[in-house]
């Protein structure tokens, strides 16, 4: 059973993570994204798959494509704080922001999927969500979420982690502190080490 860590605590997950079935047919992205498709080789979900997607009651974490295509029918639920959206590693945070009139904070939860842990695109997505788009609510790592990446997840702006089923939560929480004084700044606003060197005692 996959455990959810929020901050540094194991908590019960009150969200349903909705995923689309793997599409078999290669589908080209809309015109503007052809370059992206060519470069990354990612497939987009078809309209049929999106409209057939079952959205259960309660708090749901939806694929970006479902949210974009069906947000009219979801408007009330979104206002009630029942809708979260997750991005796959090739998807564009800007598209999500645009769908929310630029205000990502209308969502209580955004997820970023790591299809494989060696796919590092999600770190940049998290960074962009936290910085360029000023997203402040829960940002959850999904998918291949493993102990040895916890430190990086956290620094790039994730504050919740849906662990892969075989992971031990206690060890993953410990791994958030693998390093005590990293060199660079990140979304946590921690100054880079050279600014801390210049002002000793200023360490958090």
């Amino acid at each position, binding site marked *: 059973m996959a455990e959810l860590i929020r901050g540094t605590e194991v908590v019960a997950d009150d969200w349903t993570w909705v995923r689309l079935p793997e599409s078999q047919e290669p589908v080209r992205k809309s015109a503007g994204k052809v370059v992206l498709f060519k470069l990354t080789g990612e497939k987009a979900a078809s309209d049929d798959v999106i409209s057939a997607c079952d959205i259960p009651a309660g708090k749901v974490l939806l694929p970006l494509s479902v949210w974009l295509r069906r947000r009219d029918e979801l408007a009330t639920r979104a206002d009630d704080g029942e809708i979260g959206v997750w991005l796959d590693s090739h998807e564009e945070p800007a598209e999500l922001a645009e769908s929310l009139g630029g205000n990502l904070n209308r969502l209580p939860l955004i997820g970023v999927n790591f299809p494989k842990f*060696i796919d590092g695109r999600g770190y940049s997505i998290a960074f962009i969500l936290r910085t360029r788009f000023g997203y402040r609510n829960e940002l959850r790592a999904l998918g291949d979420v493993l102990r040895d990446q916890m430190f990086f997840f956290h620094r790039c702006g994730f504050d919740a982690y849906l662990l892969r089923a075989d992971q031990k939560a206690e060890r993953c929480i410990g791994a958030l502190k693998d390093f005590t004084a990293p*060199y660079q700044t990140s979304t946590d606003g921690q100054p880079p080490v050279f600014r801390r060197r210049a002002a000793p005692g200023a360490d958090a």
Partner: protein
Amino acid sequence: MYRYDEYDHTLVLERVAQYRDQLQRNLAGELSDDEFRPLRLQNGLYIQRHAPMLRVAIPYGMLSSMQLRKLSDIGRRYDRGYGHFSTRQNMQFNWPKLEDTGDILAELATVEMHAIQTSGNCIRNITTDPFAGVAPDEIVDPRPYCEVLRQWSTFHPEFAFLPRKFKIAVSGTLEDRAVTYAHDVGLQLYRDEKGDVLARVIVGGGMGRTPILGSVIHEALPWQHLPTYLDAVLRVYNRYGRRDNAYKARIKILVKAIGAEAFARQVDEEWQLERDGIATVTQAELDRARAAFTDPEAPVLPETDAGFDAKLASDPAFARWVSRCVRGHKRPGYRAVTLSLKPTGIAPGDISCEQMDALADLADRYGFGELRVSHEQNVVLADVALADLYELWLGARAHGLATPNIGLLTDIICCPGGDFCSLANAKSIPIAQAIQEAFENLDYLYDVGDLELNISGCMNSCGHHHVGHIGILGVDKTGSEWYQVSIGGSQGNRTSLGDVIGPSFAAEEVPGVIKKLVETYVEQRTPEERFIDTVRRLGMAPFKASVYGESTKKAEVTHG
């Protein structure tokens, strides 16, 4: 050189603990081999043909005598009494035991060393000119900037899992000695008319399967912005670089696909997010880094030394060594000395533990305890007084470190190849040795003069064969080893990629082919021409004719 403070120490020790835990989980079966693989790679640990290979980082090639003694100690206790300097200015141990690697890292940490990011799909060890800080043609000492970038890149949380490896080279001289056009990012530091340091940012160069020279995407980036600008470069690459095909995953493929101008625009847009932010480097930090790379407190010396001049006149062997291995220095009375790790019969870059100890002693005695590793796989003592050169030569010669072949054909740059590396298509070290044996006559070698010969055992091009005046590439054809030969490549300001001369050769044919190429040069050259100049002037045709003669067409059919 740079010394760790408490931040650096803590980080490296925490890494040792983290790695030990990962290793222990892998040995206990809790962490699968597949999942351990990227983790151990980011720690420089390959599982190779015979045993694991551990690659130790030598940041921008700088090494203290104390560190070299520790490498020697590790080589004796955990390896088979030797190590290998790579073309990335790192040291590789080819025979450690997997279970020992945690202990080796702990040993390294005691001398401010590590193996962080020496492999894997992350930002690798940054390389630079081995003559940094002493070169007469230096405009900016690149080392403080390299150190700032070392810290920026170490455990960068956003870029630990890139599409592919990412290599950065920095130069600060008129003559580029860091091959900046053949790296994922090349930074050429220079000064504007006010004396402020700027960087020319070159992106998307590389060797490998698709050799490409990089494109300039920023002509004049002020140094303060290096980390934030590189963040932007890496972010665009991390998000849009191909991940579906490892052979098309380097940044060069992305830059080529969308065009350098479009790439530069995307980077610039991305950069605005962080520009002038908290990660902008402060003058105080640059000063701190600079203070680590001051000139040694050495006595001021006259331009000349009578004793040196006398030895030069009386000892032709010494004079020969000086002519190839000693080069100019920015301060009068000093010289930079390259000690060759390319004697005939030894794999290029290999060094025994006895030699490491001897080298450390020589560095202490004549070079202020500092050494540099060059990407040509030799070792440099950067600050040697003229008056000490003769004794240094005697000491180096006693340990096989004074082969007078720097820059000559036998100063071969060579990857470990099929003898060690599991990626290689073909062996490279025996080819290097066969060529060295074919050119043993020193007088002939000197007459041939400057000639860079590079050998890679596969398309990954660790031997940089694309930029060799003569490049040799091992290829696999239906299970047997063949060698493709190219000419016309070069590093430096006129970086160019070599062209393949024709169908490939069997291993035993290679020395003969090289001989024919060299003979053609000797026949055709004008008095002032180096091999590469003749190739540039005459093109491929005469060289090709000398090698293949009339049988060119037939050979193409046979093993084309």
